[in-house]
Every structure is written in structure tokens, then in C-alpha cells.
């Protein structure tokens, strides 16, 4: 059941990623919905689950961008794996943790991507990454609030 919900969420956030970022940009800040989903799912998952969700998030993003599919998949898989691994630290789940995880996850995923597929201009890329991470941190709050009851279902 939970896997099905996560699969639907991946499709839903893929739709968001394809149709919304330019429409919901604020002061040239654009969110990355798939990275928000990856971070929130990883909070309630483990290394394996995080890596699998990361794989699909990366595949969708790479497909939408049209290039660097391998790099997107690799960066998201590694990020999901690391975020899932953090569950071993047994941190108290909270909105703050969700925000920090999302911001950190976004930065980590994009920095990994930057190393394996270097963009033409590093500084602007990092600037855009920081802005996206901040926007993602805001979006993570409602997503976490909605995801928490679903994650606690006993099915």
C-alpha cells in the first residue's frame, strides 16, 4: 500500500516538476518538487528505499531535461541512499528535521550533479542551487505534514 502511494506521489511530483516550476517561481526562485519528495520519503524510509525513489526521481528529471540521464539518476540515487542512511541516527522526526533534510538533500544532490556533470558556469549554478534549496525547504513543510499520517499507516 505504502509503495503504491509512494509510486503515485512520484508521478504526482513529476507532474508538478514538469508543469509548475516556472509558474510558481518567486523572485526567480524555482522549486524542485522531485527533490522535496525524495527528502521526505527518505525520512520515513531506509537506504534502499531512498535509493529506489532517488532512481525514479533522477530518471524523471533526466527525461524532462533531455540530457545527462545517468548523472541525474546517479546524483539522486546517492542522495536518497545517504538520506535514508541518516535514519540510522534515530533522529526525532519533526517539521524542522524535514526542512533541514530537504535543504541538505537538495544541496547534496545538486553538488553531486555538479561534480559528475559540471555546468558551464559553476557560481551561477551554485547560486541557483541555494535558492532552490531554500524554496524546497518551505515546500517540505506541507509535504511532511501530509506525508506523516500516511507513513504511520499500519498497512
Amino acid at each position, binding site marked *: 500500500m505504502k509503495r503504491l502511494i509512494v509510486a503515485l506521489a512520484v508521478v504526482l511530483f*513529476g507532474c508538478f*516538476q514538469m*508543469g509548475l516550476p516556472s509558474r510558481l517561481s518567486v523572485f526567480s526562485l524555482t522549486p524542485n518538487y522531485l527533490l522535496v519528495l525524495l527528502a521526505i520519503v527518505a525520512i520515513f524510509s531506509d537506504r534502499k528505499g531512498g*535509493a*529506489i525513489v532517488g*532512481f525514479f526521481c*533522477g530518471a524523471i528529471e533526466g527525461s524532462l531535461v533531455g540530457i545527462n540521464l545517468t548523472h541525474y539518476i546517479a546524483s539522486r*540515487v546517492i542522495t536518497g541512499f545517504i538520506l535514508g542512511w541518516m535514519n540510522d541516527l534515530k533522529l526525532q522526526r519533526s517539521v524542522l528535521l524535514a526542512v533541514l533534510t530537504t535543504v541538505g538533500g537538495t544541496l547534496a544532490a545538486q553538488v553531486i550533479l555538479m561534480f559528475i556533470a559540471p555546468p558551464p558556469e559553476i557560481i551561477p549554478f551554485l547560486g541557483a542551487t541555494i535558492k532552490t534549496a531554500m524554496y524546497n525547504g518551505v515546500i517540505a513543510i506541507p509535504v511532511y505534514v501530509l506525508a506523516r499520517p500516511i507513513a504511520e499507516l499500519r498497512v
Partner: protein
Amino acid sequence: MNVRRNRISPDWLTLIVLLALGAILGRAQSSARLVGREDFVSRIFVGVLSPGAHIFGSAADALNDFSRGIFSARRLERENEMLKKELRALSVYNDTVALLRNDLDSQRKLIDMPSLGKTKVYADVIGFYAEENRILISAGTEKGLHQGLAVVSGDGLVGTIQSSDKGFSVVTLISSPKPAIGALLSARNPPSAGLIHGDGGQILTLQFGDPQAAVDSGDLVVTSGFSEYIPRGIVIGKVIQKIENLESGQLVAKVYPSVAIGRLHEVVILK
């Protein structure tokens, strides 16, 4: 124990498999791009996500428009009012531009107008007395003007000088009942000639000397030149009606003048 320690954990194995799968898919994408096509993974994802993305995109646009409409209503109303005012101001400006353009055309016509063997003296209209069929112009005896000279604009005959003094002259308009001015229909051969005068209104009356004269609506009426001071060929107007009086044997034509007196600013006196 050693065998257990060396075994790769399932999580790490998953990571490696997913990375390998990613590399394979990336290679497929690169190969497809080389032949100018989309790879199958991209086709699937884009195909699956497009309808949903379109729906969410449209919904976001609608929501954005709605919220903008609510929060910007006051500002839009103010802008609307301001634009309406600007439109009204622009309309007045356009009218002014049209009037100035007419003035400019009139000036050009005055400058280009042939002198008809006379000397041209330019003057401004400084007074207009519609009831008396008179105008006052800003040139007088100091420029050699005197009674009887033809006063014209770019469109045609305005009238004749009634009296002149230093610095100004009084002009009797062609709409005045007196004096009558010699006129003819330039397009007729032989030209039908007569005397033209006003009736106090806008329309002029041309009384032909010959009751059998050829005349029709649309004929151009010009000065006859049978006067010492008014040369031949100055446009007066166009025939709009022919009236035959069988009892008195008279033939007259009603003529619409070519000069709009109310819009005159400058005139030329043919000296």
C-alpha cells in the same frame, strides 16, 4: 564469519544495481540523441507526465489569475480610470493635431499658390465678423493695399478689400450680397459667365448674363478676370443647383464656396 563479513549488504547491492541501470539508461539516451530521437525512458516519462503537468499548469495559471484579480482589483481600477483619462486627453490631442495639420496644409497651399500676374502680400486674419460678412486683416496701406483687391486663401477666393488703413484692412467676404464679382464656369467652352454674390448665408448665387448658358451641378466656378483688380482663374466654388426662372427669363446657379471662412488664419492679397 569471514565469509559473512565480505558479503555485500543488500542496500549497497541495490545502490550499485541502480547506478548501473542509470548508466545503461543514460547510454541509451545518448545513443538516441545521436540519431535525433528521444530514448524510450524519456518517451515513457514525458508521455505519462504530460497530461497531469498540463492539468496542474492550467490550474496554477487559473489560481494565479484569480488571486491576482482579487488582490490587484483596486490597482486595476485605478489604472483603468487613469487610462480612460489618458484616452480622453489623447482624443483632444488628436483633434488639435488634425487642426494644426489643416493649418499647415493651408499654409502650404498659400505659399504654392500662383500669383496670377500679381504681387502676393501675406496677412493674418485678426478679426472675423460673421454677421457683417467681413474680416479684418493685418496689412493695409503701408503695403500698398487698397479697395477692390482680391483676397484669397489656399482654397480660393475669400473676398475683396473694402477699405484699407495703415496696419489693417477690412475685407468683404464673397458671402456678402454686395459687391457682385465676375465669375464663369471654367470647364465650359465658351465659358458661361455671370455675376456671383452672397445671400447672407453660406451658399452663393451666380446670376448668368445669358439665360441659355450651359451649366450643371459640379461645374467649377472661378473668377472671370473682367475686373481691374481680380485676376481670372481664382477658384470660388462648385455649382450645386441650377435654377431657371421662365417668367423672368433668368438663369441662376447656387454655388458652394470652396473656402471655409471660419477656419481662415492667413490670407494672401493679390496686389
